[in-house]
């Protein structure tokens, strides 16, 4: 008898069905109209850098927000695969999707899984309408990759908890209404570092919350420091169980790591470079084919992972693989186009705008959501090396 073969690192590819193809056409048509009407200018990395609450509400009206939230909570009751398709179409045209990104990807699913009935009834309809905007508060000044070392404290008080500490790299906190904060609700036990952590739903307009900008190297303001100075969290704003924070934040990582935002952040630049090669303002170069091929294969890989997640299969290793490959590729696209252009050449101003933004955003691609070094470790563990 042969040994039982090890399952593949990434689930087998699947072919998109007719329902999804029609949905793509519908979204694509809407987006073409929006661009035509000058509603937005296609850009790179728009899930972090382009914030437009009106656009978010328009998507909600079309039924493309709260997609995986059940209809009884005001959502669309659709599948992760339908959301995948809508997400891809939004990202490839560089639409302004940052305002709802975190809520659509993480907050909604987490509330569905861990929220109380009251929390679901309160937040999910608002998320689905685009009326409430969420951030996520995980990293801290001394906790980057080592998330279990967070020091924000949650102290038990009458009727709730008081949160004190500092969260950093909170995207859009200055525009957001609330965020999920991971905090230590019991003293650190060095032997069991993942215990004693809890998640709290924090109203960012509450007293004791102070938000300070962190300006990125291009001069833009996307990130923030969020200082929590004894912020009162009522008991009904605890997410899930006290002490279960680590399991809660790590259980949804498959979706966070394997989605299309991990390979499409610079797609507008790639598309503009293809056009420039056709027009002759950039030299036709085989490197374009290489990068296009990788994006095409990443689309298939990411869709395969989403299909596995939809079927509740374990896909942590596969999701890490998508993120390592995808974020490297989207960054390489920026560098690749840069190697084709001459300094000071501004014949195609739009291409330059996209290129410069991509170069400046690039370092973040392989850092956010788990650095590629951490993720290679996750893959190695999945392969049985750790």
């Amino acid at each position: 008898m042969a040994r039982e073969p090890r399952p593949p690192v990434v689930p087998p590819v699947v072919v998109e069905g007719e329902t999804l193809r029609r949905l793509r056409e519908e979204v694509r048509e809407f987006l073409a109209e929006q661009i035509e009407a000058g509603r937005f200018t296609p850009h790179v990395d728009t899930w972090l850098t382009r914030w437009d609450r009106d656009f978010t509400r328009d998507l909600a009206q079309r039924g493309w927000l709260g997609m995986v939230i059940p209809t009884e909570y005001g959502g669309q009751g659709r599948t992760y695969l339908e959301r995948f398709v809508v997400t891809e179409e939004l990202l490839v045209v560089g639409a302004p999707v940052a305002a709802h990104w975190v809520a659509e990807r993480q907050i909604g699913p987490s509330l569905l899984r861990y929220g109380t009935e009251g929390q679901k009834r309160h937040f999910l309809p608002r998320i689905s309408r685009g009326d409430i905007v969420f951030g996520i508060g995980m990293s801290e000044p001394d906790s980057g990759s080592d998330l279990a070392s967070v020091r924000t404290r949650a102290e038990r008080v009458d009727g709730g908890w008081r949160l004190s500490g500092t969260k950093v790299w909170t995207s859009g906190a200055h525009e957001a209404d609330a965020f999920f904060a991971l905090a230590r609700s019991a003293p650190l036990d060095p032997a069991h570092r993942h215990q004693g952590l809890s998640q709290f739903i924090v109203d960012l307009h509450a007293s004791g919350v102070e938000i300070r900008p962190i300006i990125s190297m291009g001069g833009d303001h996307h990130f923030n420091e969020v200082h929590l100075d004894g912020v009162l969290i009522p008991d009904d704003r605890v997410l899930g169980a006290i002490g279960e924070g680590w399991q809660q934040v790590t259980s949804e990582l498959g979706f966070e790591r394997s989605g299309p935002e991990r390979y499409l952040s610079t797609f507008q630049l790639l598309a503009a470079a293809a056009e420039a090669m056709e027009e002759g303002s950039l030299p036709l170069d085989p490197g374009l084919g290489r990068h296009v091929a990788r994006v095409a294969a990443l689309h298939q890989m990411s869709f395969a992972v989403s299909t596995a997640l939809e079927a509740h299969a374990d896909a942590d290793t596969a999701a890490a693989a998508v993120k390592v490959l995808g974020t490297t590729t989207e960054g390489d696209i920026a560098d690749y186009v840069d190697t084709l252009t001459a300094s000071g050449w501004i014949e195609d101003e739009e291409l330059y705008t996209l290129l410069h933004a991509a170069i400046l955003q690039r370092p973040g691609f392989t850092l956010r959501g788990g650095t590629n070094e951490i993720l290679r470790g996750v893959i190695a563990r999945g392969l049985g090396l750790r």
Partner: protein
Amino acid sequence: MADLERLAVSTRPDPDLVGMLADLFEAYRSTRPAPTERVEFDPALWAHLDELGLTRLTASESSGGSGASWVEGAALLGLAAAAGAPVPLAEHGVLGAWLLEEAGLPNDGALRTVCRPDPSGRALNVTFARDAAAIVALWEDGDCWRVADVPTERTRLTERRNLAGEPCDTVQFELADLEAAPLVADTVGHQFHLRGALARSAQVCGAMERVLEVVLTHAREREQFGRPIGKFQAIQHLVADIATESSLARAATDTAVARAATTNWQDPGMLFTVGVAKSCVGHAASVVVRNAHQVLGAIGTTLEHELHVLTKPILVRRSEYGSVHEWDETLAELAASAGRDRLWPLILTGRR
């Protein structure tokens, strides 16, 4: 799950067939002789595969084949390549049998290989030509294509070997044998190139997946500084990149195989889709071969070790039916002509 099926269609090969093939090639790998510098055709293995109906797995039943789809065909090619099996499954079963069917020529099942001779009737790099009873030649005759089934004894062979030590001969045909051959449809020439490229991609994927297993075993067993080398992050990262690159190549290849199987190669997007596979496979091969040899250390460079039985054919096959550079150029041309607004539909469907 019924709902999921409506959204996404799976095209996995028949699990019973895959299980049988995995056992068969595992048995072959565990009993084959130690690697040698020269790779020779294995007639015993071939006879066994022939008895099981595997040598012409994807050829139609009416022509003496087993009538399986490309999904099964690609699984066979991958598992055989993973075992380093020295048999021309792609040449005989996938390409040769198909060309004979297209030409309406009989197929007696004797060992065949394939090639595309130039206008002077000469073909280079014809794998296992010296072992074949006949050579199926696809010949461009002006603006049409002909397929000839020429007994090897009617050709002049110059024996050569490729990087992997496999028979890879130069074949000189008599022009009269080619000129008299039956005409085939115009599309056959183009499709031959695509089918060859995808068959090679499937073989390289299978071999790269076996490389990952060899590397993992070594990283767990080899100890330095008092612990298995797989415990070091530097090694873990080399291995992780082997896994991710070969997974990307697999996703691209399986996508092309699924599209070929479901549309019987009639989809106009096949050129792009096969190109994506060939490009991803080709670039993955660079990382996989480099990192595997780095992890295995000096022992992996020796003749007695299994690793070169995989890495050398990986490099040979990624460059057949179009170099990596040529396929990247083809994709670049398709992408550029699609332009900014049509690049994404091109990526999804292969069509402009």
